[in-house]
């Protein structure tokens, strides 16, 4: 049935006619807990949460996965994911994940961290976990702003970008430059896979999911650290509508943080 048919017969359809098993094209993963999200409308976190849970369910690895939540907007990530999780101190997720993975090497471990957590206060932990080639996945949400504390400059804030602590735009002569941490850790021999995706269009959402799946596969093969940077929107702190914020990703974020693989395992080159 296409959209046109549906419109034509709109008045004749009742919900019970449409909601039948044979029309089912998508089902929310059971591992994504069905409660209200605390995220703002239009925020990308919910999408990435869903993608993670979809992949974990489709790969049938619920009993193997242990997640680590950060401090930041996604501090409550564990409220929505029906898997074992630990909540780390600010910036320390990769150290916590190191502790977990080292004592449970057969389990699959991921961290979920924002830009402030991963690339400011936790930079040392991030770089050293990557440099040891810790065999886990780092999901890095880059929205170029501190969300939870309501809009301060992040290490990834773009030059000229207005935040509550750069009210006249980020002046790189004072605050330094946005940190491209993905490009930085890609240099380290222990790191096997680094890619940058986004969740502002359907196609990019699909590519993000694919990257998550690949990263878990690499982890099963003990290939080393995987880092997926996801460009995500923050309509509330960017002071934009969700649509405007998607446009901002396309026009401002992607030119500075280009999408695509930064490092792939050797045999795939």
């Amino acid at each position, binding site marked *: 049935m296409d959209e046109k048919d549906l419109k034509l017969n709109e008045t004749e359809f009742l919900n019970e006619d449409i909601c039948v098993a044979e029309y089912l094209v998508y089902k929310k993963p059971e591992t994504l807990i069905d409660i209200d999200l605390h995220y703002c409308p239009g925020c990308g976190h919910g999408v990435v949460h869903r993608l993670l849970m979809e992949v974990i369910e489709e790969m049938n690895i*619920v*009993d*193997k*996965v*242990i997640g*680590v*939540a950060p401090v930041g907007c996604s*501090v*409550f990530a*564990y409220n929505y*994911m*029906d*898997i*074992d*999780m*630990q*909540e*780390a*101190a600010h910036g*320390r997720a990769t*150290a*916590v*994940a*190191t*502790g*977990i*993975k*080292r*004592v*449970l090497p057969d*389990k699959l471990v991921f961290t979920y961290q924002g830009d402030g957590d991963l690339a400011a206060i936790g930079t*040392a*932990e991030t770089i*050293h976990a990557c440099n040891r080639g810790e065999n886990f996945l780092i999901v890095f949400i880059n929205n170029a702003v501190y969300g939870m504390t309501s809009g301060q400059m992040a290490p990834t804030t773009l030059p000229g970008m207005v935040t509550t602590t750069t009210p006249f735009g980020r002046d790189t002569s004072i605050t330094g430059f946005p940190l491209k941490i993905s490009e930085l850790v890609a240099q380290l021999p222990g790191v096997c896979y680094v890619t940058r995706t986004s969740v502002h269009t359907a196609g990019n959402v699909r590519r993000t999911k694919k990257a998550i799946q690949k990263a878990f596969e690499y982890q099963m093969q003990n290939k080393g650290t995987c880092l997926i940077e996801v460009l995500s929107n923050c309509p509330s702190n960017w002071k934009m509508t969700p649509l405007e914020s998607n446009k901002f990703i396309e026009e401002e974020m992607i030119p500075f943080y280009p999408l695509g693989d930064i490092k792939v395992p050797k045999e795939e080159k």
Partner: protein
Amino acid sequence: MGEVRLMKGNEALAEAAIRAGCDAYFGYPITPQSEVLEYLSREAPQRTGMVVLQAESEIASINMIYGAAGAGKRAMTTSSSPGISLMQEGLSYIAAAELPCLLANINRGGPGLGTIQPAQSDYFQSVKGGGHGDYKLIVLAPSSVQEMADFVRLGFDLADKYRNPVMILSDGAIGQMMEKVELFEQQPKGGTFPKPWATTGKTKDRQRNIITSLHIDPKEMENINLRLQEKYHAIEENEVRYEVMKIDDAEFILTAYGLAARICQKVVELAREKNYKVGLIRPITLFPFPKKLFAEIVPRIKGILDVELNAGQMVEDVKLSVEGKVRVEFYGRMGGIIPTPEEILEHFEKIFIKGE
């Protein structure tokens, strides 16, 4: 009788970690305790398969402990004063998330970078909190190489029993000196306490396990605080440990822990030679503090001299325990200086005999 060896305190502690069934050690080098990481790197992985990892900082190592302890494993780290300061954030989270684990502080003189010589200046930090929030560590104070070994097993067992971090508060002298030590037999790896709360991957037969210290709702947060306080109270009821020497007929009490208590044993001997009726109370657990013992002894004594290698820290707990009912004096040296028994006796005589 177990195997007897001549060992450094730090080595005995490391050997005991292997034998206590420790699953993982994460640490960062710092004088005067680097032998622990060195010994374990050399011995542990091939003997028991223990994970031994040199972290990039003490901040990382304490958070690795959080992860490993949260995964249900026996995890341990050691450091010395400045390194322990860096761990305070992590310790607060560990105490709040109720993760059993073991730490040792081989105390050196401070503040700041200080000195690498022994001191007891981290009593407040260990016993009164150190990090943010209302929490307690169980604090064990060894005064011999033997206790450096024994308290590792005791520490892990107390940690598992109460789901609470345990701190062995030692110092640079006990860590570095060599003594005879009788080692306990190899214990099962990981200990025997069930840990159904650990994050090991959610299986179909149970709910997910979450390790967290975040509770935004104030009612919930207060309830958790109340439950923690109840636990600390139970620890105070059940786990007080101390050693006494010649207190039955004592008119005066010397009190000291760890290295200072060893010196005070000699002071008791010297005092008795001069017919001063002096006894010694050595708290072994600094939290829980042997409050009741001090309160009980008050009616029988004329005064207490508290001796520490700091500016006077445990003396506050002694004073709180006796509630002003007896005179409490303090003698301490700082910055890595270790007082002689004669020096302490002279101070005792000055205060309590000559009445200066």
